[in-house]
């Protein structure tokens, strides 16, 4: 396994299998009364978050603590550029405290990669702008595998604001790596530029018609749509978005009854996902959250437990 986890592209299929095997063991730990493992005792993990986050930050925090690492959260909200300090200076300052693992969330695409070139610590990308969110994609795939078995040949539909979504970018990579077929659905304004060439290369398909693709889906992933996008002219109104691309009660009926419904959260109930869909028996939204801890424990364990902290 590579030293850092910056992109799903850093992982081979074998790496993902290894991560999932360990995650399954970690999942069992979650159900124990005493949840601590000693694997990262004496190691320090810093969650360096330049963007607000509740679930990802606390998920990493719990994962680190259950592995006995010392976990420190640093919220560096607001761009460091606006404070006059360079990103490099900010992360070098943090790392000078003595850090073994740096979990970084930043609003700018590529930030985790840049940071990995400056520091000695293991860097885990917890979301970089619109680029990637690899642990989210891993927990999504892990959740789906537990429901569906191997994803090879399964059809996953991803719906929503693809342009601005790091969850989409990481998921399309991981799902394709695991052999799933992927269809992405969005209005043309929320499709990333150049997606025609990319989808051809990446072996996935695009569609503007959710109703046409849903009946064939083995799983559906709804992405969060930010209401601010309306002012950017990406779509005219929330109502129009819901009618075209929301997982409404009517569309729920088109979906296979056992097809898992995923959402990375936080959900806009009534916009991209109706309450009936969010709360349906086939919704796996809460499974995703608990899988998130197990998968992040596995990632921390594999990237950090073998590391020689004396370097």
């Amino acid at each position, binding site marked *: 396994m590579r030293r850092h986890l910056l992109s799903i592209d850093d992982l081979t299929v074998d790496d993902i299998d290894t991560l999932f095997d360990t995650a399954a063991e970690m999942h069992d730990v979650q159900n124990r009364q005493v949840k601590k493992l000693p694997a990262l005792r004496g190691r320090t993990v810093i969650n360096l978050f330049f963007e607000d986050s509740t679930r990802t930050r606390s998920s990493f925090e719990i994962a680190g603590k259950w592995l006995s690492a010392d976990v420190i959260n640093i919220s560096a909200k607001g761009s460091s*550029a606006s404070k006059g300090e360079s990103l490099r200076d900010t992360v070098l300052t943090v790392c000078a405290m003595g850090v073994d693992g740096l979990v970084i969330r930043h609003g700018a695409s590529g930030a985790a990669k840049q940071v990995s070139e400056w520091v000695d610590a293991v860097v885990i990308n917890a979301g970089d*702008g619109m680029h990637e969110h690899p642990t989210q994609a891993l927990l999504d795939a892990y959740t789906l595998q537990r429901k569906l078995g191997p994803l090879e040949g399964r059809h996953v539909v991803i719906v929503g604001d693809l342009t601005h979504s*790091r969850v989409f970018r990481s998921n399309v990579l991981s799902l394709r790596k695991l052999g799933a077929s992927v269809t992405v659905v969005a209005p043309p304004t929320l499709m990333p530029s150049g997606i025609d060439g990319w989808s051809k290369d990446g072996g996935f398909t695009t569609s503007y018609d959710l109703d046409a693709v849903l009946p064939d889906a083995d799983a559906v992933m709804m992405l969060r749509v930010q209401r601010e996008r309306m002012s950017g002219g990406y779509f005219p109104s929330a109502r129009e978005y819901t009618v075209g691309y929301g997982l409404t009660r009517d569309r729920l009926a088109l979906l296979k009854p056992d097809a898992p419904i995923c959402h990375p959260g936080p959900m806009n109930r009534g916009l991209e996902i109706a309450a009936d869909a969010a709360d349906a028996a086939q919704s796996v939204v809460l499974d995703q959250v608990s899988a998130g801890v197990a998968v992040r424990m596995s990632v921390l364990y594999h990237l950090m437990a073998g590391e020689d902290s004396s370097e």
Partner: protein
Amino acid sequence: MTVLTQTVPKTVIVKGALLYGEKQADLLVEDGLIREVGEVSAPKDAQVIDADGLVALPGLVDLHTHLREPGREDAETVLTGSRAAAVGGFTAVLAMANTNPVTDTGEAAERVWDLGRTAGLVDVHPVGAVTRGLAGEELAELGLMARSRAKVRVFSDDGKCVGNARVMRRALEYIRSFGGVISQHAQDPDLAGATSCCHEGELSGRLGLPGWPGVAEEVIVARDVMLARHTGSRVHIAHVSTAGSVEVLRWAKSQGIAVTAEVTPHHLLLTTDLLAGYDPTYKVNPPLRPAEDVEALRAALADGTIDAVATDHAPHARHDKEHAFVDAAFGMLGLETALSVVSTVMVENGPMSWMDVARVMSANPARIAGLDGQGRGLEAGEPANLTLVDPTASVTVDRAASVSLSRNNPYHGRTLTGAVRATLLRGTPTVLEGTLHEDDPDHRSDQRHRPGVGQAARS
């Protein structure tokens, strides 16, 4: 080559240079002028520059530099930028107005002009802002800048587009009375906003970087050539970066519209795929484009649709590039490497002759900026602004070797063909054997401080 002592001889003889890469001749330089061209026997006390195998070009002229003074003297000063220009073979540069304070008054322009003369290595001509504070709303003091000692003729809000069509129209009309030109940074702010930093295409989609679509440039180029036609004034398009802009320019020129255009060396060589690693060294505005655009720009430069090469030399302090990609500063160095890039791309691997290089890097930019004493022929009676180039030298670019204060060099580690060996500003060597030649400030030749000498030679 003789090593100069403290006094600079008034007479220099350049032996055996290939004029424009074609005809071999000696150049006798006296009192800042070319006196004789041909086979010249050296006067006794003349300084001899052995130019055997070197191509002689008229001194290069750069329509587009950022010298950062006043305001960001940690990134570059007029003096250090002048050094970089001289090393790059330039004898005149235009210094963009986006300093702090902005060059939007006669006094501000004179300050830059004076700093340039004090440095004394190249003619530094301030570009005036089109609008006050580059805010795009009210006209800057265009007439007072034109009347100032700096005699400003080129105006630009570069870094920002004059986005408002009414403001652009009024500015074009206003500068007609003194023969000015507006150099437009063509970027429709609604189609490519302040965070747009990667050519909009498959790569920006994959990387999740805010896209800067070519059409944001093209719509402004199209609008401005129509405004040039309507007003009868001159528009110059800075750093053209797309094939679509080239098409518009070709049409406009076919209609006789007074439009000129420049392309940067980096847009002639580097492509957008360099952004894949999120290295802010490659972040520049307009962004690096795909190979199809690069090909179109090369063809347009060769066929004259694009008139000039201009560096857009944009030094930045290291910490301003050590941000996340979208937060890092736009721009890359260019003065020291421009000739080598053009030589590699357009001469060694392209259709251009050295005569063409002289056209796009000296004569045309001098004409566009209205610099009478620059960009002239290598003929007796002309000002002795000269650049000597070793056309076969293979140079591996080392960013640490730069005389600029900054290190944001996108060519670091690349090998280029062709190197500037010497530069003469009105007869005084500023670069010899590829190395900056700054004499003791107490013993400076007065020749290069007299930009007027060229005009005198003309009449």
